[in-house]
């Protein structure tokens, strides 16, 4: 039930401006903490601007899509949808400079596989990754809890795929449209691209689904307007119709813009800039990170040793007691 979900309660936003504001806040917070020694007017020479962060996120969204497409065994699309949601949610409140999108991206996909019950082991999962697989395993498993925490443990995601099925059933039942199955291809294409936009953070899954179906219909020169206004919304939804038309229009225009790919030269510059300004504490290649991990490991060891010695002493005292009282 979408209206009672955490997605509706905590992860639906009012407007793109609000999203941008939140992202700017995350950016400013990061610079405030880690940029104390840089001058105010030159801070964007070192750090990424909110706009640049957005470009980075966008780029890794494309990566995410391609990675999922190539994934072996083939991945159901709702896993992809869920992973997109996680990825977007994470970078609403976190800066790209703090956590590298490359790492968060794979973690999101891994978590989405788990949540959507697409069962792959970590070995199977990292087999899809090029490069050092052991390191990738470490990164994913280390970031998994962080990701969940940042998502506020709101893990269940309502994707627009099932609503599309519902709409198609409804169209087949209540309209005279010739062969509604023709809509499917266009709809799926639309949904895939909608994942690349902020639409899924602004509109309910059923609205996105309806926009997709209407878009596919208009591509086929069909008209479903009367279905929406009369059949679907009918008497009791009359006053809500304007809002819906507005939403559908906005989703369609957002999806239309989704295809713009950032140019390569700019990407390279950004990559270099990010490598310089990313938080070394969360960079698995940095010395600080390695030290931190070691410290955590040592802490665990200490704790373990303490607990185990405590247990032994308890065992001993219990044992001696039982020996003494056994002749009773």
């Amino acid at each position, binding site marked *: 039930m979408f209206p009672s979900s955490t997605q509706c309660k905590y992860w639906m936003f009012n407007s793109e401006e609000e999203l941008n504001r939140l992202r700017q806040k995350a950016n400013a917070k990061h610079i405030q903490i880690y940029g104390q020694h840089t001058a105010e007017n030159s801070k964007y020479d070192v750090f990424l601007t909110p706009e640049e962060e957005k470009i980075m996120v966008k780029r890794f969204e494309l990566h995410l899509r391609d990675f999922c497409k190539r994934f072996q065994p083939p991945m159901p699309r709702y896993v992809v949808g869920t992973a997109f949601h996680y990825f977007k949610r994470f970078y609403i409140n976190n800066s790209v400079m703090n956590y590298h999108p490359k790492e968060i991206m794979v973690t999101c996909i891994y978590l989405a596989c788990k949540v959507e019950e697409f069962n792959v082991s970590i070995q199977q999962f990292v087999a899809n990754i090029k490069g050092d697989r052991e390191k990738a395993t470490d990164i994913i498993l280390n970031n998994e809890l962080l990701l969940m925490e940042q998502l506020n443990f709101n893990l269940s995601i309502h994707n627009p795929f099932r609503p599309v099925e519902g709409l198609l059933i409804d169209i087949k039942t209540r309209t005279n449209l010739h062969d509604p199955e023709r809509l499917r291809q266009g709809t799926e294409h639309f949904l895939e691209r909608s994942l690349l936009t902020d639409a899924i953070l602004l509109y309910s899954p059923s609205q996105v689904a309806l926009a997709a179906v209407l878009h596919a219909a208009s591509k086929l020169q069909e008209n479903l307007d009367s279905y929406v206004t009369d059949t679907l919304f*009918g008497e009791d939804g009359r006053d809500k119709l304007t809002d819906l038309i507005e939403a559908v229009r906005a989703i369609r225009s957002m999806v239309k813009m989704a295809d713009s790919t950032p140019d390569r030269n700019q990407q390279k510059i950004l990559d270099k800039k990010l490598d310089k300004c990313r938080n070394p504490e969360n960079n698995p290649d940095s010395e600080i990170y390695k030290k931190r991990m070691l410290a955590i490991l040592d802490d665990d060891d200490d704790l373990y040793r303490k607990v185990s010695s405590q247990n032994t002493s308890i065992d001993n005292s219990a044992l001696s007691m039982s020996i*003494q009282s056994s002749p009773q």
Partner: protein
Amino acid sequence: MDDFICPRCRTSKFQNPSMKMMVNVCGHGLCESCVDLLFLKGSGSCPECRIPLRRNNFRVQLFEDSAVEKEVDIRKRVLRDYNKREEDFATLQEYNDYLEEVETIIFNLTNDIDIVNTNKRIEQYKRDNKEQILKSKGRLGREEYEMEEMLEFEKQREEERKKVIQLEEVEIKKKKIREKEALIDELMFSNADAKNILDTFAQQAQQEKKEEEEEEVRKIPGKATQFSTGIQFGRQSHSTFLPVPTDEGPIYVYKPLEFDSDGPKPPNDIDIVEKHFLNHVRSETDTERAGGYKANIACLRALQDAMMGLFHSKKSIKS
């Protein structure tokens, strides 16, 4: 079983199944009839070890091994004085030392090791802890107390039951008398055939008897749970677990779940059949049906998901 032979008269349990073996503080057995014979005067000596014994110290032998019997006896005596409990000690170690000491004394006495010194030790202890012993005797242990409570409870139940049975009997007697009188009255004053009257009364009596029997049958299971294991179980659970809280307050009334769809009202499970939504969904295979899946579940859910949230708008979040 071979051990159950009276050492004096050579009677065995096989010859006399009702024979009872008795035992005294020395641990040597004697059959009941021999005890009666030898200890007519109330005291005498053990035929085996010549220790002077009193007749009223004889008990029925509970354990096959008389050594165990002896040990139990000694333990009882020693613990009468060594009656400290865990609460009386500052540390567990001290308490354990104390238990160790008690066990040593009992072991020594049972196996006749250093009896003189051991008895001296007990005397010494008695003198040192006179007050403590008296105090401890005064208070009953928690377990003993519970035990007593349990016995008390059972006794009460027993009495209640007896009363009920008595009442029932009286009732039955009264009823019989009444029936007889009614029959005589009927015979005296009615104009009907005497034989007919007798017949009808006999029938009535029979029917009542049948009903009573049925009632009896119905009663028995209830009684069984109460009186066989019921009491024990009940008692045990009372002493170890908290009573199960009984729900009080208004009785639960089922209300169908209502959810805010935030969109057009989705068709319900009747609509999807009647309005032919279901025709556009792949029907389930036999294997799927065996697993509990039906096409209307999927159909209903897809339609619900499609409708829900369609009214969702930016303004509605703010409010």
